[in-house]
Protein backbone atom coordinates (compact mmCIF):
# COMPACT_ATOMS: atom_id res chain seq x y z
CA UNK A 1 0.00 0.00 0.00
CA UNK A 2 1.31 3.39 -0.92
CA UNK A 3 1.81 5.65 2.09
CA UNK A 4 1.13 8.76 0.05
CA UNK A 5 -0.94 8.77 -3.07
CA UNK A 6 -1.92 11.91 -4.90
CA UNK A 7 -4.42 11.59 -7.69
CA UNK A 8 -4.95 14.25 -10.36
CA UNK A 9 -4.62 17.22 -8.06
CA UNK A 10 -5.47 20.65 -9.38
CA UNK A 11 -4.84 23.77 -7.37
CA UNK A 12 -5.10 27.38 -8.38
CA UNK A 13 -4.97 30.71 -6.62
CA UNK A 14 -6.28 34.07 -7.72
CA UNK A 15 -3.11 34.63 -9.72
CA UNK A 16 -3.70 31.46 -11.75
CA UNK A 17 -3.24 27.70 -11.70
CA UNK A 18 -0.33 26.53 -9.59
CA UNK A 19 -0.66 22.78 -9.91
CA UNK A 20 -2.47 21.00 -12.67
CA UNK A 21 -3.14 17.30 -12.86
CA UNK A 22 -0.52 16.19 -10.36
CA UNK A 23 -0.22 12.53 -9.48
CA UNK A 24 2.41 10.95 -7.29
CA UNK A 25 2.84 7.91 -5.10
CA UNK A 26 5.35 7.23 -2.37
CA UNK A 27 5.83 3.79 -0.85
CA UNK A 28 6.66 2.97 2.76
CA UNK A 29 10.13 4.14 3.71
CA UNK A 30 10.72 5.81 0.38
CA UNK A 31 12.30 9.24 0.08
CA UNK A 32 10.67 11.12 -2.77
CA UNK A 33 12.30 14.41 -3.61
CA UNK A 34 10.03 16.99 -5.20
CA UNK A 35 12.43 19.09 -7.19
CA UNK A 36 11.79 22.22 -9.18
CA UNK A 37 12.73 25.87 -9.51
CA UNK A 38 11.16 28.36 -7.12
CA UNK A 39 7.57 29.12 -7.94
CA UNK A 40 6.96 25.69 -9.45
CA UNK A 41 4.39 24.81 -6.77
CA UNK A 42 6.48 22.49 -4.61
CA UNK A 43 5.52 24.09 -1.33
CA UNK A 44 1.87 24.22 -2.35
CA UNK A 45 1.97 20.49 -2.98
CA UNK A 46 3.30 19.80 0.52
CA UNK A 47 0.73 22.13 2.03
CA UNK A 48 -2.02 20.26 0.21
CA UNK A 49 -0.77 16.98 1.66
CA UNK A 50 -0.48 18.53 5.13
CA UNK A 51 -4.07 19.75 4.88
CA UNK A 52 -3.12 23.39 5.22
CA UNK A 53 -4.52 24.08 1.78
CA UNK A 54 -7.34 22.33 0.00
CA UNK A 55 -7.07 21.04 -3.55
CA UNK A 56 -9.56 22.36 -6.12
CA UNK A 57 -9.82 18.93 -7.69
CA UNK A 58 -8.37 15.49 -7.15
CA UNK A 59 -7.82 13.33 -4.12
CA UNK A 60 -5.08 12.69 -1.60
CA UNK A 61 -4.74 9.31 0.09
CA UNK A 62 -2.53 8.92 3.14
CA UNK A 63 -2.00 5.29 4.17
CA UNK A 64 -4.87 4.36 1.91
CA UNK A 65 -7.31 6.78 3.50
CA UNK A 66 -8.89 9.66 1.59
CA UNK A 67 -8.04 12.71 3.68
CA UNK A 68 -10.26 15.23 1.88
CA UNK A 69 -12.16 16.03 5.09
CA UNK A 70 -9.33 15.54 7.56
CA UNK A 71 -7.92 18.69 9.19
CA UNK A 72 -4.12 18.95 9.54
CA UNK A 73 -4.16 17.65 13.12
CA UNK A 74 -5.91 14.42 12.04
CA UNK A 75 -3.49 13.48 9.27
CA UNK A 76 -0.78 12.07 11.51
CA UNK A 77 2.20 13.46 9.71
CA UNK A 78 5.28 15.46 10.53
CA UNK A 79 6.34 18.56 8.68
CA UNK A 80 9.34 20.85 8.73
CA UNK A 81 8.77 24.27 7.25
CA UNK A 82 11.21 26.16 5.12
CA UNK A 83 11.07 29.14 7.48
CA UNK A 84 11.33 26.78 10.49
CA UNK A 85 8.05 28.09 11.99
CA UNK A 86 9.23 27.59 15.55
CA UNK A 87 7.02 28.83 18.37
CA UNK A 88 8.87 31.93 19.58
CA UNK A 89 7.37 31.87 23.06
CA UNK A 90 8.43 28.32 23.84
CA UNK A 91 11.83 26.82 24.54
CA UNK A 92 13.41 24.48 22.02
CA UNK A 93 12.35 21.60 24.27
CA UNK A 94 8.71 22.68 24.31
CA UNK A 95 8.82 23.27 20.58
CA UNK A 96 9.82 19.69 20.00
CA UNK A 97 7.51 18.33 22.70
CA UNK A 98 4.54 20.14 21.12
CA UNK A 99 4.37 17.42 18.49
CA UNK A 100 3.76 14.87 21.26
CA UNK A 101 1.62 16.61 23.85
CA UNK A 102 -1.58 16.28 21.85
CA UNK A 103 -1.46 12.48 21.83
CA UNK A 104 0.88 11.50 24.63
CA UNK A 105 -0.07 12.15 28.23
CA UNK A 106 2.90 10.76 30.15
CA UNK A 107 5.57 13.44 30.75
CA UNK A 108 8.21 10.74 31.20
CA UNK A 109 7.62 9.31 27.72
CA UNK A 110 7.55 12.79 26.20
CA UNK A 111 10.83 13.67 27.88
CA UNK A 112 12.48 10.43 26.79
CA UNK A 113 11.43 10.93 23.16
CA UNK A 114 12.46 14.59 23.02
CA UNK A 115 15.83 13.84 24.64
CA UNK A 116 16.40 11.03 22.21
CA UNK A 117 15.72 13.06 19.08
CA UNK A 118 17.69 16.02 20.48
CA UNK A 119 20.69 13.77 20.99
CA UNK A 120 20.32 12.39 17.49
CA UNK A 121 20.34 15.91 16.04
CA UNK A 122 23.04 17.16 18.44
CA UNK A 123 20.95 19.92 20.00
CA UNK A 124 20.68 18.55 23.56
CA UNK A 125 22.66 21.48 24.93
CA UNK A 126 20.24 24.14 23.70
CA UNK A 127 16.97 22.54 24.79
CA UNK A 128 16.14 25.31 27.26
CA UNK A 129 16.89 28.14 24.84
CA UNK A 130 14.19 30.21 23.18
CA UNK A 131 14.18 30.10 19.37
CA UNK A 132 15.62 33.61 19.11
CA UNK A 133 18.70 32.44 21.02
CA UNK A 134 19.41 29.65 18.57
CA UNK A 135 21.69 29.84 15.57
CA UNK A 136 20.16 29.15 12.18
CA UNK A 137 21.57 25.64 12.19
CA UNK A 138 20.12 24.94 15.62
CA UNK A 139 16.75 26.35 14.57
CA UNK A 140 16.75 24.13 11.54
CA UNK A 141 17.59 21.08 13.65
CA UNK A 142 14.93 22.00 16.19
CA UNK A 143 12.34 22.25 13.42
CA UNK A 144 13.51 18.92 12.05
CA UNK A 145 13.40 17.37 15.51
CA UNK A 146 9.84 18.59 15.97
CA UNK A 147 8.85 16.90 12.72
CA UNK A 148 10.66 13.67 13.60
CA UNK A 149 9.90 13.28 17.30
CA UNK A 150 6.48 11.65 16.99
CA UNK A 151 7.78 9.02 14.53
CA UNK A 152 5.27 10.02 11.89
CA UNK A 153 4.61 7.51 9.14
CA UNK A 154 4.77 10.37 6.67
CA UNK A 155 7.28 13.16 6.86
CA UNK A 156 7.05 16.34 4.80
CA UNK A 157 10.21 18.41 4.58
CA UNK A 158 9.93 21.76 2.86
CA UNK A 159 13.40 22.77 1.76
CA UNK A 160 14.76 22.44 5.29
CA UNK A 161 18.32 23.29 4.26
CA UNK A 162 17.43 26.44 2.35
CA UNK A 163 18.07 28.87 5.15
CA UNK A 164 21.22 27.40 6.62
CA UNK A 165 24.79 28.23 5.72
CA UNK A 166 26.77 26.28 3.15
CA UNK A 167 28.86 24.30 5.64
CA UNK A 168 25.89 23.08 7.61
CA UNK A 169 23.98 22.34 4.44
CA UNK A 170 26.81 20.13 3.31
CA UNK A 171 26.93 18.32 6.66
CA UNK A 172 23.19 17.84 6.77
CA UNK A 173 23.15 16.56 3.23
CA UNK A 174 25.45 13.80 4.40
CA UNK A 175 23.57 13.12 7.64
CA UNK A 176 19.99 13.35 6.45
CA UNK A 177 19.74 10.21 4.29
CA UNK A 178 20.72 7.87 7.12
CA UNK A 179 18.61 9.85 9.58
CA UNK A 180 15.56 9.65 7.36
CA UNK A 181 16.13 6.00 6.51
CA UNK A 182 16.47 5.20 10.20
CA UNK A 183 13.13 6.85 10.92
CA UNK A 184 11.44 4.45 8.50
CA UNK A 185 9.06 7.21 7.47
CA UNK A 186 7.90 7.90 3.99
CA UNK A 187 9.51 11.20 3.17
CA UNK A 188 8.46 13.90 0.75
CA UNK A 189 11.36 16.26 0.47
CA UNK A 190 11.10 19.54 -1.37
CA UNK A 191 14.20 21.24 -2.67
CA UNK A 192 15.43 23.41 -5.49
CA UNK A 193 19.00 22.23 -5.16
CA UNK A 194 19.67 19.44 -7.64
CA UNK A 195 22.61 18.13 -5.62
CA UNK A 196 20.38 17.75 -2.59
CA UNK A 197 17.80 15.99 -4.73
CA UNK A 198 20.38 13.59 -6.14
CA UNK A 199 21.91 12.94 -2.71
CA UNK A 200 18.69 12.26 -0.84
CA UNK A 201 16.09 10.92 -3.21
CA UNK A 202 15.14 7.33 -3.88
CA UNK A 203 12.99 8.96 -6.47
CA UNK A 204 12.99 12.47 -7.86
CA UNK A 205 9.79 14.07 -9.06
CA UNK A 206 10.62 17.03 -11.23
CA UNK A 207 7.99 19.75 -10.97
CA UNK A 208 8.02 22.29 -13.76
CA UNK A 209 5.32 24.86 -14.38
CA UNK A 210 2.76 23.11 -12.23
CA UNK A 211 3.17 19.57 -13.54
CA UNK A 212 5.46 16.61 -13.02
CA UNK A 213 7.72 16.29 -16.04
CA UNK A 214 9.54 13.24 -14.83
CA UNK A 215 9.37 10.94 -11.84
CA UNK A 216 12.40 8.64 -11.77
CA UNK A 217 15.51 7.64 -9.86
CA UNK A 218 18.29 10.24 -9.57
CA UNK A 219 20.51 8.40 -12.06
CA UNK A 220 17.72 8.15 -14.56
CA UNK A 221 16.84 11.82 -14.24
CA UNK A 222 20.46 12.70 -14.88
CA UNK A 223 21.23 10.19 -17.61
CA UNK A 224 17.89 10.20 -19.37
CA UNK A 225 16.06 13.43 -18.59
CA UNK A 226 12.53 13.48 -19.97
CA UNK A 227 12.84 16.94 -21.41
CA UNK A 228 15.41 19.57 -22.19
CA UNK A 229 14.08 21.56 -19.25
CA UNK A 230 14.89 18.73 -16.84
CA UNK A 231 18.33 18.30 -18.41
CA UNK A 232 19.02 21.98 -17.86
CA UNK A 233 18.08 21.81 -14.17
CA UNK A 234 20.38 18.92 -13.31
CA UNK A 235 24.08 19.46 -13.59
CA UNK A 236 26.53 22.18 -12.73
CA UNK A 237 27.65 23.71 -15.02
CA UNK A 238 24.48 23.34 -17.02
CA UNK A 239 24.21 21.17 -20.05
CA UNK A 240 25.28 22.58 -23.43
CA UNK A 241 22.41 22.83 -25.86
CA UNK A 242 23.18 22.86 -29.55
CA UNK A 243 20.43 23.18 -32.11
CA UNK A 244 21.06 20.87 -35.06
CA UNK A 245 19.35 19.19 -37.96
CA UNK A 246 21.36 16.01 -38.45
CA UNK A 247 21.68 14.43 -41.88
CA UNK A 248 22.14 10.77 -42.61
CA UNK A 249 25.55 9.54 -43.67
CA UNK A 250 26.63 5.89 -43.74
CA UNK A 251 23.66 4.91 -41.63
CA UNK A 252 24.49 7.45 -38.92
CA UNK A 253 23.10 10.83 -38.08
CA UNK A 254 25.70 13.49 -38.61
CA UNK A 255 25.63 17.04 -37.36
CA UNK A 256 27.90 20.02 -37.71
CA UNK A 257 29.77 21.59 -34.80
CA UNK A 258 32.45 24.20 -35.22
CA UNK A 259 32.93 23.40 -38.84
CA UNK A 260 33.44 19.70 -38.25
CA UNK A 261 30.96 16.93 -38.98
CA UNK A 262 30.34 14.83 -35.93
CA UNK A 263 28.33 11.63 -35.95
CA UNK A 264 25.85 10.40 -33.37
CA UNK A 265 25.79 6.73 -32.34
CA UNK A 266 24.00 4.40 -34.78
CA UNK A 267 20.95 4.09 -32.52
CA UNK A 268 20.09 7.71 -33.27
CA UNK A 269 19.81 7.08 -37.03
CA UNK A 270 16.12 7.90 -36.88
CA UNK A 271 16.67 11.54 -35.89
CA UNK A 272 18.21 12.44 -39.25
CA UNK A 273 16.28 15.20 -40.95
CA UNK A 274 14.51 16.26 -37.78
CA UNK A 275 15.00 19.55 -36.09
CA UNK A 276 16.73 18.63 -32.84
CA UNK A 277 18.39 20.04 -29.77
CA UNK A 278 21.50 18.20 -28.74
CA UNK A 279 22.26 18.15 -25.05
CA UNK A 280 25.90 17.66 -24.24
CA UNK A 281 26.99 17.52 -20.61
CA UNK A 282 30.12 19.61 -19.98
CA UNK A 283 31.88 16.58 -18.57
CA UNK A 284 31.44 14.66 -21.83
CA UNK A 285 33.43 17.25 -23.73
CA UNK A 286 37.10 16.32 -23.71
CA UNK A 287 39.61 19.06 -24.34
CA UNK A 288 42.93 18.04 -25.85
CA UNK A 289 46.07 19.78 -26.99
CA UNK A 290 46.49 17.84 -30.20
CA UNK A 291 43.80 17.13 -32.79
CA UNK A 292 42.47 13.60 -33.16
CA UNK A 293 39.71 11.85 -35.08
CA UNK A 294 36.38 13.71 -34.75
CA UNK A 295 37.88 16.50 -32.69
CA UNK A 296 37.11 20.05 -33.56
CA UNK A 297 39.19 23.16 -33.02
CA UNK A 298 38.16 25.50 -30.20
CA UNK A 299 39.52 28.46 -28.38
CA UNK A 300 39.67 28.26 -24.59
CA UNK A 301 38.26 31.60 -23.48
CA UNK A 302 38.11 31.25 -19.71
CA UNK A 303 38.97 28.73 -17.03
CA UNK A 304 37.01 28.73 -13.76
CA UNK A 305 37.67 26.36 -10.90
CA UNK A 306 34.50 24.82 -9.49
CA UNK A 307 35.07 22.63 -6.46
CA UNK A 308 37.23 19.77 -7.61
CA UNK A 309 36.46 20.43 -11.25
CA UNK A 310 37.53 23.17 -13.54
CA UNK A 311 35.09 24.63 -16.00
CA UNK A 312 36.36 25.73 -19.38
CA UNK A 313 34.50 28.15 -21.57
CA UNK A 314 35.22 27.17 -25.16
CA UNK A 315 34.44 29.02 -28.35
CA UNK A 316 34.15 27.13 -31.60
CA UNK A 317 35.20 28.68 -34.90
CA UNK A 318 31.62 29.48 -35.77
CA UNK A 319 31.34 31.53 -32.60
CA UNK A 320 29.31 29.10 -30.46
CA UNK A 321 30.19 29.07 -26.77
CA UNK A 322 30.18 25.76 -24.98
CA UNK A 323 31.21 24.69 -21.51
CA UNK A 324 33.49 21.80 -20.71
CA UNK A 325 34.12 20.48 -17.23
CA UNK A 326 37.03 18.31 -16.33
CA UNK A 327 38.04 16.67 -13.13
CA UNK A 328 41.46 15.40 -12.20
CA UNK A 329 43.26 17.45 -14.82
CA UNK A 330 46.04 19.62 -13.46
CA UNK A 331 44.59 23.11 -13.68
CA UNK A 332 47.87 24.81 -14.45
CA UNK A 333 48.27 22.65 -17.54
CA UNK A 334 45.37 24.45 -19.18
CA UNK A 335 46.11 27.56 -21.14
CA UNK A 336 43.82 30.17 -22.61
CA UNK A 337 44.05 29.86 -26.39
CA UNK A 338 43.67 27.36 -29.14
CA UNK A 339 42.92 23.72 -28.34
CA UNK A 340 40.92 20.79 -29.64
CA UNK A 341 37.72 19.34 -28.25
CA UNK A 342 36.14 15.97 -28.69
CA UNK A 343 32.68 14.68 -27.73
CA UNK A 344 31.81 11.53 -25.92
CA UNK A 345 29.17 10.80 -28.54
CA UNK A 346 27.53 8.08 -26.42
CA UNK A 347 26.61 10.63 -23.78
CA UNK A 348 24.88 13.04 -26.17
CA UNK A 349 21.19 13.51 -25.43
CA UNK A 350 18.85 14.27 -28.29
CA UNK A 351 15.72 16.34 -27.79
CA UNK A 352 12.93 17.23 -30.15
CA UNK A 353 13.35 20.92 -30.96
CA UNK A 354 9.63 21.67 -30.97
CA UNK A 355 8.41 19.81 -27.87
CA UNK A 356 11.63 19.66 -25.90
CA UNK A 357 11.02 15.97 -25.18
CA UNK A 358 13.94 13.62 -25.28
CA UNK A 359 14.11 11.33 -28.30
CA UNK A 360 14.95 7.88 -27.00
CA UNK A 361 17.57 6.00 -28.99
CA UNK A 362 16.43 2.94 -30.87
CA UNK A 363 18.32 -0.08 -29.61
CA UNK A 364 19.45 -2.30 -32.46
Amino acid at each position, binding site marked *: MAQVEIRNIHKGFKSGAVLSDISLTAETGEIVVVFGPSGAGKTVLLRLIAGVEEPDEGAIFLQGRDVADAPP*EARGLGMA*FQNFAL*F*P*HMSAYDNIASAL*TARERSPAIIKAKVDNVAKLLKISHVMQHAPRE*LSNGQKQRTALARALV*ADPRILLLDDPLR*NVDAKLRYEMRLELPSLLKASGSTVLYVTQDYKEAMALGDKIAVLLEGGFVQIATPTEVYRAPATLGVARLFGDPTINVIPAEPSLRDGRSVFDLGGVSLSLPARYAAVAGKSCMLGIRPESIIVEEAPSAESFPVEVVAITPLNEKSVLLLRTYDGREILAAEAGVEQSSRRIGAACARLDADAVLVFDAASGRRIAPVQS
Partner: protein
Amino acid sequence: MEHTSRLERIIRIVLVALILIFFLFPIFWIFLMSFQTNEDILRIPPSPFFTPTISNYQALITGKLVSAAGTLDIPFMRNLWNSVLLSSVSVVIALILGVPAAYAFARFKFRLGEDIAFTLLSFRFAPPLLVLLPLSLYFQEIGLTDTYAGLIWVYQLIALPLILWIVRGYFEDISPDIEYAYRIGGHSWWRTFTRIAVPLAGPGIAAAGLLAFIFCWNNFVFALILASADKQPVTVGSLAFVTASGIQYGQIAAAIVLSVTPTLAIALYAQRYLVEGLSLGAVKG
Protein backbone atom coordinates in the same frame (compact mmCIF):
# COMPACT_ATOMS: atom_id res chain seq x y z
CA MET B 1 28.62 51.50 19.58
CA GLU B 2 28.54 54.88 17.97
CA HIS B 3 30.91 57.44 19.33
CA THR B 4 29.15 60.49 20.71
CA SER B 5 30.88 63.72 21.52
CA ARG B 6 30.48 65.59 24.78
CA LEU B 7 28.44 68.29 23.08
CA GLU B 8 26.02 65.79 21.61
CA ARG B 9 25.50 64.24 25.02
CA ILE B 10 24.76 67.60 26.59
CA ILE B 11 22.31 68.55 23.85
CA ARG B 12 20.59 65.21 24.25
CA ILE B 13 20.21 65.68 27.99
CA VAL B 14 18.82 69.20 27.55
CA LEU B 15 16.30 68.04 24.93
CA VAL B 16 15.14 65.11 27.03
CA ALA B 17 14.75 67.43 30.00
CA LEU B 18 12.67 69.87 27.94
CA ILE B 19 10.37 67.11 26.74
CA LEU B 20 9.95 65.73 30.24
CA ILE B 21 9.13 69.17 31.63
CA PHE B 22 6.64 69.79 28.84
CA PHE B 23 4.73 66.60 29.51
CA LEU B 24 5.16 66.17 33.24
CA PHE B 25 4.86 69.74 34.48
CA PRO B 26 1.04 69.91 34.20
CA ILE B 27 0.76 66.68 36.18
CA PHE B 28 3.17 68.02 38.76
CA TRP B 29 1.28 71.32 38.99
CA ILE B 30 -2.05 69.57 39.44
CA PHE B 31 -0.47 67.38 42.09
CA LEU B 32 0.60 70.55 43.93
CA MET B 33 -2.82 72.14 43.43
CA SER B 34 -4.52 69.18 45.01
CA PHE B 35 -2.81 70.09 48.28
CA GLN B 36 -3.78 73.78 48.13
CA THR B 37 -6.84 75.66 49.17
CA ASN B 38 -8.79 77.58 46.58
CA GLU B 39 -7.31 80.81 47.90
CA ASP B 40 -3.74 79.57 47.42
CA ILE B 41 -4.56 78.44 43.91
CA LEU B 42 -6.15 81.68 42.81
CA ARG B 43 -3.39 83.87 44.29
CA ILE B 44 -1.68 86.17 41.80
CA PRO B 45 1.15 85.73 41.12
CA PRO B 46 1.04 81.96 41.72
CA SER B 47 3.62 80.64 44.10
CA PRO B 48 4.99 77.16 44.65
CA PHE B 49 5.23 77.89 48.37
CA PHE B 50 2.13 77.17 50.42
CA THR B 51 0.97 75.34 53.48
CA PRO B 52 -0.19 71.94 52.23
CA THR B 53 -3.63 70.79 53.18
CA ILE B 54 -5.35 67.46 52.77
CA SER B 55 -8.80 69.01 53.02
CA ASN B 56 -9.43 68.46 49.32
CA TYR B 57 -8.84 64.73 49.61
CA GLN B 58 -10.80 64.67 52.82
CA ALA B 59 -13.78 66.24 51.11
CA LEU B 60 -13.62 63.75 48.25
CA ILE B 61 -13.28 60.69 50.40
CA THR B 62 -15.92 61.65 52.93
CA GLY B 63 -18.19 62.97 50.16
CA LYS B 64 -18.87 66.22 52.01
CA LEU B 65 -17.92 69.36 50.16
CA VAL B 66 -17.74 72.29 52.56
CA SER B 67 -17.94 75.64 50.83
CA ALA B 68 -18.92 79.17 51.65
CA ALA B 69 -22.53 78.39 50.68
CA GLY B 70 -22.79 75.38 52.98
CA THR B 71 -22.18 71.65 52.85
CA LEU B 72 -22.69 69.78 49.62
CA ASP B 73 -22.83 66.03 49.07
CA ILE B 74 -20.59 64.73 46.34
CA PRO B 75 -20.62 61.01 45.52
CA PHE B 76 -17.03 61.15 44.25
CA MET B 77 -15.93 57.79 45.60
CA ARG B 78 -19.01 56.23 44.08
CA ASN B 79 -18.16 57.89 40.75
CA LEU B 80 -14.66 56.51 40.98
CA TRP B 81 -15.99 53.03 41.65
CA ASN B 82 -18.39 53.41 38.71
CA SER B 83 -15.49 54.35 36.46
CA VAL B 84 -13.51 51.29 37.53
CA LEU B 85 -16.51 49.01 37.11
CA LEU B 86 -17.69 50.41 33.75
CA SER B 87 -14.25 50.59 32.16
CA SER B 88 -12.95 47.23 33.30
CA VAL B 89 -16.11 45.27 32.52
CA SER B 90 -16.36 47.00 29.13
CA VAL B 91 -12.76 46.14 28.28
CA VAL B 92 -13.11 42.53 29.43
CA ILE B 93 -16.23 42.08 27.30
CA ALA B 94 -14.61 43.86 24.36
CA LEU B 95 -11.58 41.56 24.66
CA ILE B 96 -13.73 38.42 24.82
CA LEU B 97 -15.61 39.53 21.72
CA GLY B 98 -12.89 41.41 19.92
CA VAL B 99 -9.89 39.08 20.09
CA PRO B 100 -11.58 36.12 18.34
CA ALA B 101 -13.16 38.54 15.87
CA ALA B 102 -9.78 40.13 15.17
CA TYR B 103 -8.36 36.65 14.59
CA ALA B 104 -11.15 35.84 12.16
CA PHE B 105 -10.60 39.06 10.23
CA ALA B 106 -6.86 38.45 10.16
CA ARG B 107 -6.89 34.81 9.11
CA PHE B 108 -10.01 34.07 7.12
CA LYS B 109 -11.18 35.74 3.99
CA PHE B 110 -14.95 35.69 3.96
CA ARG B 111 -17.68 37.47 2.13
CA LEU B 112 -18.14 41.07 3.30
CA GLY B 113 -15.31 40.54 5.79
CA GLU B 114 -13.56 43.78 4.97
CA ASP B 115 -16.86 45.65 4.93
CA ILE B 116 -17.82 44.42 8.37
CA ALA B 117 -14.39 45.30 9.74
CA PHE B 118 -14.60 48.75 8.24
CA THR B 119 -18.11 49.32 9.51
CA LEU B 120 -16.88 48.51 13.01
CA LEU B 121 -14.04 50.97 12.57
CA SER B 122 -16.42 53.64 11.30
CA PHE B 123 -18.06 53.72 14.74
CA ARG B 124 -14.94 55.56 15.76
CA PHE B 125 -15.42 58.20 13.06
CA ALA B 126 -18.94 59.22 14.02
CA PRO B 127 -19.22 61.95 16.63
CA PRO B 128 -20.81 60.36 19.71
CA LEU B 129 -23.39 63.14 19.87
CA LEU B 130 -24.75 61.95 16.54
CA VAL B 131 -25.80 58.59 17.93
CA LEU B 132 -26.70 59.78 21.40
CA LEU B 133 -30.14 61.17 20.70
CA PRO B 134 -31.59 58.09 18.98
CA LEU B 135 -29.72 55.92 21.44
CA SER B 136 -31.19 57.61 24.51
CA LEU B 137 -34.67 57.25 23.03
CA TYR B 138 -34.15 53.56 22.34
CA PHE B 139 -32.62 53.05 25.76
CA GLN B 140 -35.63 54.61 27.42
CA GLU B 141 -37.91 52.31 25.47
CA ILE B 142 -36.09 49.09 26.30
CA GLY B 143 -35.30 50.15 29.85
CA LEU B 144 -31.53 50.39 29.59
CA THR B 145 -31.26 54.03 30.61
CA ASP B 146 -29.36 54.45 33.85
CA THR B 147 -28.16 50.85 34.05
CA TYR B 148 -24.60 49.55 34.14
CA ALA B 149 -25.47 47.06 31.41
CA GLY B 150 -26.66 49.83 29.11
CA LEU B 151 -23.53 51.90 29.63
CA ILE B 152 -21.24 48.91 29.18
CA TRP B 153 -23.04 48.11 25.96
CA VAL B 154 -22.54 51.65 24.66
CA TYR B 155 -18.90 51.57 25.76
CA GLN B 156 -18.41 48.71 23.29
CA LEU B 157 -18.66 51.40 20.61
CA ILE B 158 -15.44 52.78 22.02
CA ALA B 159 -13.56 49.65 23.04
CA LEU B 160 -14.50 47.03 20.46
CA PRO B 161 -13.29 48.75 17.25
CA LEU B 162 -10.07 49.75 18.94
CA ILE B 163 -9.29 46.23 20.12
CA LEU B 164 -10.43 44.68 16.86
CA TRP B 165 -8.18 46.78 14.67
CA ILE B 166 -5.09 46.83 16.84
CA VAL B 167 -5.16 43.10 17.63
CA ARG B 168 -5.94 42.21 14.03
CA GLY B 169 -2.65 43.77 12.96
CA TYR B 170 -0.77 41.70 15.52
CA PHE B 171 -2.46 38.49 14.38
CA GLU B 172 -1.60 39.30 10.78
CA ASP B 173 2.04 39.65 11.77
CA ILE B 174 2.18 36.08 13.07
CA SER B 175 3.30 33.72 10.34
CA PRO B 176 0.42 31.33 9.60
CA ASP B 177 3.04 28.60 9.29
CA ILE B 178 3.65 28.80 13.03
CA GLU B 179 0.02 27.96 13.62
CA TYR B 180 -0.03 25.27 10.96
CA ALA B 181 3.07 23.72 12.52
CA TYR B 182 1.19 23.43 15.82
CA ARG B 183 -1.87 21.93 14.17
CA ILE B 184 0.20 19.42 12.23
CA GLY B 185 1.60 18.47 15.63
CA GLY B 186 -1.89 17.19 16.39
CA HIS B 187 -3.48 20.14 18.15
CA SER B 188 -7.00 21.33 17.45
CA TRP B 189 -7.87 24.69 15.98
CA TRP B 190 -9.01 26.04 19.35
CA ARG B 191 -5.87 24.92 21.18
CA THR B 192 -3.76 26.52 18.47
CA PHE B 193 -5.66 29.76 18.92
CA THR B 194 -5.25 29.79 22.69
CA ARG B 195 -1.72 28.39 22.90
CA ILE B 196 -0.06 30.00 19.89
CA ALA B 197 -1.99 32.90 18.42
CA VAL B 198 -3.14 34.61 21.62
CA PRO B 199 0.21 34.41 23.46
CA LEU B 200 2.06 35.67 20.40
CA ALA B 201 -0.36 38.58 19.98
CA GLY B 202 -0.10 39.17 23.75
CA PRO B 203 1.71 42.51 23.59
CA GLY B 204 -0.85 43.74 21.06
CA ILE B 205 -3.76 42.53 23.16
CA ALA B 206 -2.29 44.23 26.22
CA ALA B 207 -1.77 47.47 24.32
CA ALA B 208 -5.26 47.42 22.84
CA GLY B 209 -6.82 46.55 26.20
CA LEU B 210 -4.96 49.38 27.89
CA LEU B 211 -5.90 51.91 25.24
CA ALA B 212 -9.52 50.80 25.30
CA PHE B 213 -9.52 51.10 29.09
CA ILE B 214 -8.18 54.66 28.93
CA PHE B 215 -10.69 55.63 26.23
CA CYS B 216 -13.56 54.19 28.27
CA TRP B 217 -12.28 55.84 31.43
CA ASN B 218 -12.07 59.21 29.72
CA ASN B 219 -15.51 58.99 28.15
CA PHE B 220 -17.84 61.78 29.11
CA VAL B 221 -20.89 62.29 26.91
CA PHE B 222 -22.29 58.74 26.89
CA ALA B 223 -22.43 58.60 30.66
CA LEU B 224 -23.61 62.21 30.93
CA ILE B 225 -26.71 61.54 28.83
CA LEU B 226 -27.46 57.90 29.52
CA ALA B 227 -26.91 57.65 33.27
CA SER B 228 -27.96 59.45 36.39
CA ALA B 229 -25.79 60.46 39.33
CA ASP B 230 -25.38 57.08 40.99
CA LYS B 231 -24.20 55.36 37.79
CA GLN B 232 -21.96 58.12 36.51
CA PRO B 233 -18.16 57.83 36.27
CA VAL B 234 -15.65 60.41 37.57
CA THR B 235 -15.53 62.32 34.31
CA VAL B 236 -19.16 63.32 34.74
CA GLY B 237 -19.01 63.38 38.52
CA SER B 238 -16.34 66.10 38.44
CA LEU B 239 -18.98 68.49 37.13
CA ALA B 240 -20.23 68.67 40.70
CA PHE B 241 -17.21 70.78 41.62
CA VAL B 242 -18.56 73.62 39.56
CA THR B 243 -20.81 74.82 42.33
CA ALA B 244 -23.06 77.81 42.79
CA SER B 245 -20.44 79.39 45.03
CA GLY B 246 -17.58 78.98 42.55
CA ILE B 247 -15.33 76.39 40.99
CA GLN B 248 -13.58 74.15 43.51
CA TYR B 249 -10.15 74.02 41.87
CA GLY B 250 -8.52 72.22 44.76
CA GLN B 251 -11.03 69.43 44.75
CA ILE B 252 -10.89 69.17 40.97
CA ALA B 253 -7.12 68.75 41.17
CA ALA B 254 -7.45 66.13 43.89
CA ALA B 255 -10.13 64.35 41.85
CA ILE B 256 -7.83 64.34 38.82
CA VAL B 257 -4.99 62.89 40.86
CA LEU B 258 -7.24 60.17 42.20
CA SER B 259 -8.82 59.34 38.85
CA VAL B 260 -5.53 59.31 36.95
CA THR B 261 -3.97 56.90 39.42
CA PRO B 262 -5.71 53.69 38.25
CA THR B 263 -4.95 54.26 34.55
CA LEU B 264 -1.39 55.23 35.37
CA ALA B 265 -0.95 52.10 37.48
CA ILE B 266 -2.31 49.88 34.70
CA ALA B 267 -0.13 51.59 32.11
CA LEU B 268 2.98 51.04 34.23
CA TYR B 269 2.06 47.42 34.79
CA ALA B 270 1.23 46.70 31.14
CA GLN B 271 4.33 48.48 29.93
CA ARG B 272 6.52 45.39 30.02
CA TYR B 273 4.05 43.49 27.85
CA LEU B 274 4.00 46.34 25.37
CA VAL B 275 7.76 46.40 25.01
CA GLU B 276 8.32 42.67 24.84
CA GLY B 277 8.91 41.76 21.22
CA LEU B 278 8.12 38.07 21.31
CA SER B 279 8.19 37.32 17.65
CA LEU B 280 11.88 38.14 17.23
CA GLY B 281 13.94 35.46 15.59
CA ALA B 282 11.29 32.79 15.38
CA VAL B 283 10.78 32.90 11.66
CA LYS B 284 13.59 33.34 9.24
CA GLY B 285 13.26 35.57 6.21
